[in-house]
Each structure stands twice: as C-alpha cells, then as structure tokens.
C-alpha cells in the first residue's frame, strides 16, 4: 500500500458519480417525493421488505450507498481546498471526507447484512 491512494479514490469517485447520475434521479423522485406525497401508489411494506431482503437487492443497495459517498468525499475534499484556498490542513480535510465515506460504507454493510 505504499502507493499514493489517489488513483483508487478517483476511481471510486467516478464510479459513484456514474451510479448516482444514472440511478439517483428516479430513486429521489419515487421514494423521496412521489410515494411520501401520495402522487403515486408505492409498494406495501411487505413487498418492499421482501424486495430489499433479496441478496441481489442488498448488493445493489450496498453499491448504491457506498459509491456515491466516495463520490461526495472526493469531490467535496477538492471543493473545500479550492473554495477556501487551503494551503495547510488539506490532509485533514481528506482524512475527514474519506473517513466519513468509509464509516458510511461499513454502516451500510452492517445494516444490509443484518437486515431481517
């Protein structure tokens, strides 16, 4: 692991950016607006539960949560550096951002693994 991890972070950033570009709009529209506001009839608790506990859905949701978090971490890190013209402390900003994405990833793994 002696190598600079930036290429890995950039790859995760790109993957998360692509995933969220392709899938987030429909998810937000349906689950964030259309179902809660009653514009469309959402799935019942039972059928949604059955869907989400399916192994493929668990894997899908793991990628769906983790990769966009790394997208955020990488992009936000550079935005903070550039907006505030940080000369020092860029390492701390990077650590906090990637660290938060890692925590989110582990929490997602745990939650999806133990979901019953």
């Amino acid at each position, binding site marked *: 692991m002696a*190598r*600079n991890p*930036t*290429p*890995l972070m*950039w*790859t995760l950033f790109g993957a998360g950016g692509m995933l969220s570009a392709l899938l987030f709009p429909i998810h937000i529209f349906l689950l964030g607006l259309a179902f809660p506001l009653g514009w469309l009839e959402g799935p019942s608790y039972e059928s949604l539960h059955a869907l989400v506990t399916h192994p493929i859905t668990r894997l899908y949701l793991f990628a769906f949560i983790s990769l966009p978090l790394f997208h955020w971490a990488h*992009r936000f890190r*550079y*935005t903070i*550096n*550039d907006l505030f*013209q940080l000369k020092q402390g860029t390492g701390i900003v990077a650590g906090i951002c990637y660290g938060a994405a890692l925590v989110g990833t582990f929490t997602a793994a745990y939650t999806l693994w133990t979901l019953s």
Partner: protein
Amino acid sequence: MADTITLDVARYGPETDSEPSFQSYEVPCREDWVVLDALNYVKDQLDGSLTYRWSCRMGVCGSCGMMVDGQPKLTCAVPLSDYAPGPVRIEPLQFFPVVRDLVVDINDFLEKLRKVQPWIVRDEEKPIAEGEYRQTPAQLEAYKQFSMCINCMLCYAACPVVGLEEEFTGPAAIALAQRYNLDSRDQGAAQRMETLDEHDGMWGCTFVGECTKVCPKNVDPAGAIQLYKVASATNWFKSMLLPWGSK
C-alpha cells in the same frame, strides 16, 4: 459601427508601480483589424512605452496571449470589431506573475514543461545506420491532436486550479506528456507518470474544462488529463492485483 474604440490596457512598471493600473487609448476600430493590430497602433502612434509580446500574427507562435475582456485569447486571432462599441479591457494572462504591462513571467511554466520530458525518450537509441523510426498514419493519428499545442498558455490562464495550486503541472504540459506517451517511438511513459502521479501534478485537476474551451488549436487538454487519470488508475489496480508484474 463606431469609428473608434477605447482600449483599457493594464499597465505595470516594476520600477515605479506597486500594482497595475489601467490606461485608456482611443484607437480606430477597423473591420479588418484584430486586437493585436489595435495594440500595435497604440505602440506605433500613441504610446511607445506599452510593452507586450507578439511575433507571427497568424496563430502559430503562441506569444500574443492576453486577457481580452476577462477571457484568455490570442490577440492576433480575435477581431477587434467583436468588442465594439467597447471599451475593451486588455490585461496580461491571468495567474502568471507580471513582468511589465502585458508581459508575464513564464519561467514556472517552462520548468513544469521540462519536468514532463516533452521529447521522445528511448531506453536505448537505435544506431543511426538502422535508419529512422518509422510510423504509420494510424500511429501518427494517435497523438497528432495533442501535438498541435503552441505553448500559448491560454489554458493556464483559463484554469482556476493553476491559480490555486502551485504544484499543479497544468493543462498544456500534461497534454504534451500525453502526446509523447501516445507516440509509438517513445518509451518514457513510466517516467512521466512518476512526475505527474505524485503530489498534485495532475490530481489537482478537477475537470473545470475551461482549458479545452479556450485552446486555439483544439488540443483538448482536459481530455488528455482525464485519459492520464484513467491510465494512472489502471496502473494502480495492476500494481495492486499483480504486484509481481509491475516495473
């Protein structure tokens, strides 16, 4: 169209000024003039002390780049009448230290350029008796776009990361590194990658994309940098998955 146009030109004299100020000149606004012609008119007719760089007047030498109304332009390539009725603001290229008036210091750029070794690197030169290195049209096509760069530095003046991040190698130099990497005669890709991969050589780039927009030669430095990132990421995964295969 008005017969004249006002140029607001940034002036800076290192002996007397602590910061640049603007000086206005009224010049003819001729339909067949480019912005550089107006500056030459000022120099010849109004104020011989105005200092700026120019040479070929045909978009080849890359020395007359300036900020025209806040945008980096080759002044030999933009019609003056585009800015009528004026006034039009002429400033030295952004993000570069100013030597005098419209002349900027390019030493930092030249140093960055040198670091990416923009020449053909060979592990071993083949003997002259064996003849030249031959290349097919397809091999030429692979890098030709990136070889069109004239080092005019408009892309540096367009890129906020250049202004923010001293370590950043910058668009043109990375595009030229890519130009040699893609050249079938070259073997220096690994050395260049080492220079660019570490620190913020290329990773400072956040794909603002302005470099590609302002490039007068359609080099697409932004594209070159992204392809470089892809190559670096590919290397990274290769060295992780196949540790015995690297080097």
